[in-house]
């Protein structure tokens, strides 16, 4: 893992959440977002939102303690599901931020991009093809009379 300023427990909570948001899939042959390489992306991007993430994780733990008497990372999967549901309803902005960071880190992984039929590369410098298309579609519009409003 690359350097992160999140504590081990915070990183673990984020990893569990990432895997809950985007779990691994045998059907599509893709890892979950909690995969170590993907978590590297997510934790790196999360740095600039540090304060908001820590506040969200602490709200998550508060709910976990209230509902099940333990912090989020110590719960079993069913308990985590119910805590996550309460968390999303009560702290939508924090939950959205974590989901947002999760997909930002996830959809740039080689394995994930390849599974979508994308070449695992940035857009620049190769770019992409876009077909010209059938310009005869414009013929009926070309025949229209001018219809802007006169001002005189």
């Amino acid at each position, binding site marked *: 893992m690359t350097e992160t300023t999140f504590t081990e427990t915070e990183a673990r909570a984020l990893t569990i959440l990432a895997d809950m948001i985007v779990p691994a899939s045998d059907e599509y042959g893709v890892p979950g977002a909690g995969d170590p390489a993907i978590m590297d992306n997510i934790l790196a*991007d999360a740095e600039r939102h540090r304060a908001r993430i820590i506040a969200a994780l602490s709200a998550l733990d508060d709910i976990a303690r209230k509902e099940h008497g333990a912090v989020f990372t110590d719960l079993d999967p069913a308990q985590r599901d119910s805590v996550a549901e309460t968390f999303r309803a009560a702290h939508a902005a924090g939950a959205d931020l974590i989901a947002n960071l999760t997909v930002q880190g996830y959809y*740039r992984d080689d394995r994930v991009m390849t599974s979508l039929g994308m070449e695992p590369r940035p857009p620049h410098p190769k770019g992409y093809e*876009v077909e*010209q298309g059938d310009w005869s579609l414009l013929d009926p519009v070309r025949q*229209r009379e001018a219809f*802007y*409003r006169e001002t005189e």
Partner: protein
Amino acid sequence: MPEDPIVDVLIIGAGASGAAMAWSLADTRMHIVCLEQGGLMNPLEYPSTGRDWEARAQGDMSISPNQRNLPSDYPINEDDSPIKVANFNGVGGGTVLYAGHYPRFHPSDFRVKSLDGVADDWPIDYDDLAPYYGENDRMTGVAGLAGDPAYPRDNAHRLPPLPLGKSGQILAKGFNKLDWHWWPSDTAIITEDYDGRAKCINLGACGSGCAQGAKGSADVTYWPHALRAGVELRTRCRVREITVGEDGMATGAIYYDGNGDEQEVKAHVVVMACNGIGTPRLLLNSKSEQFPDGLANSSGLVGKNLMFHPYTSIMGVFEEETDGYAGPHKAIRSQQFYETDADRGYVRGYTMEIQRGHAPVRTALSGFRNGRIPWGADHHTAFRRLYNCMAGMVAVCEDLPEEHNRVTLDPDLMDGNGIPAPKISYTLSDNSRKMMDHAVARASEILTAAGAVDILSEAPIPWGGWHLMGTARMGSDPERSVVNEWGRSHDVKNLFIVDGSIFVTSAGVNPTSTIQALALYVADQMKSRLANLFD
């Protein structure tokens, strides 16, 4: 404090309008200095050169200054607005991130009071600006197609239109089924090599800076020419206030340089080009004994009449493949509902701009927001139903000026140099709401006709405050406007404003081609009056 000799023209802001103004004035051989709070962009550092490009588009290259939070940015208190500000602070200004949609106003847009009894007429008209639209298109490099029946014939030099692509064809068929207007967009994206710049290669990342240089952001269009012609551009210089002399004329500006040191520059003429928020902020912060309510503000209108263009997004999900992440976002536009029709229950209208589709992260986020993609095991199937299968449009709704929509100085919030930050207060009008509802309903009809199996809409787009207009409006009556019909302050005869602030109304199209045409127009007015500019 070191003092400059007095410069002839001081331009503040190196964005769309500042760049056009600097270039146009350069042929006078005057000493022109432009102060810009941000830096010069390096396209090879734009997000699309890296794998994390979609993350950076929400991080250090976010459209929101509050999210980017770079040293060149100033914070904006936007708690009081359902629409949040999008901008960029650096050479090129907002055009660094803009989509490059580049339509002109219609003739009717300059006459809304006469035609529809709302807002005010402009003191100039379409014909006044027409030559400058043409010159601006030539400097910028615009793709499109002549002959749009929604417009008067024009003098534009156009490169071939952007490709229709899969998405353009799907939607064109929808429009054709309903017999509704559409046309290839005028876009500031070059489809052939032009003016030393390489053509668009469909990176699909226009919104976070074009690494190819194909998108006509002002740093790659006007600035290289202006610099070669001798304009002096000082970057990382943030202006705090415009100074005034005892005679009530502007004398220059006080600014902070890149080291945070206070500097002063003296000038014979000051031109404001800081955009619809930056300009009123600076004028309001330029208080003096002569101008206790801020500079050039005897009308009390500095900061008032802020217009955004409420945007709605209406995206369809198709069973066939769309262009997805590839290509510039725009392809075609429709102005079927542009001009006023009283039967619709609102006045004025909107342009529909086609959106080709989304890259993967945006697809996922759109799915989350619209409840189409759940957390958990079903993520992948739900994601793949949207991925590369979305196309649709945004509607650019005309926003009418209302004085309560405004920019003021926040009493507490400040930027990195301790300058008071702007605060936005904005509410959507009833007219805007009705127009957005109409747009969502009509767009849904088009998407359905085009074969969409699902429709996702958002109105207004909450982060879509990318058009900043109206906060120092132009007019011939000094009590009802801040600048006159050629951009000069009514109160301070050597102070000019050329950015989006001077718009009287917003029209239902993206503003930048009009902002830049206006800047060229004002520059020409100045040049033709040099002998008696301050009379």
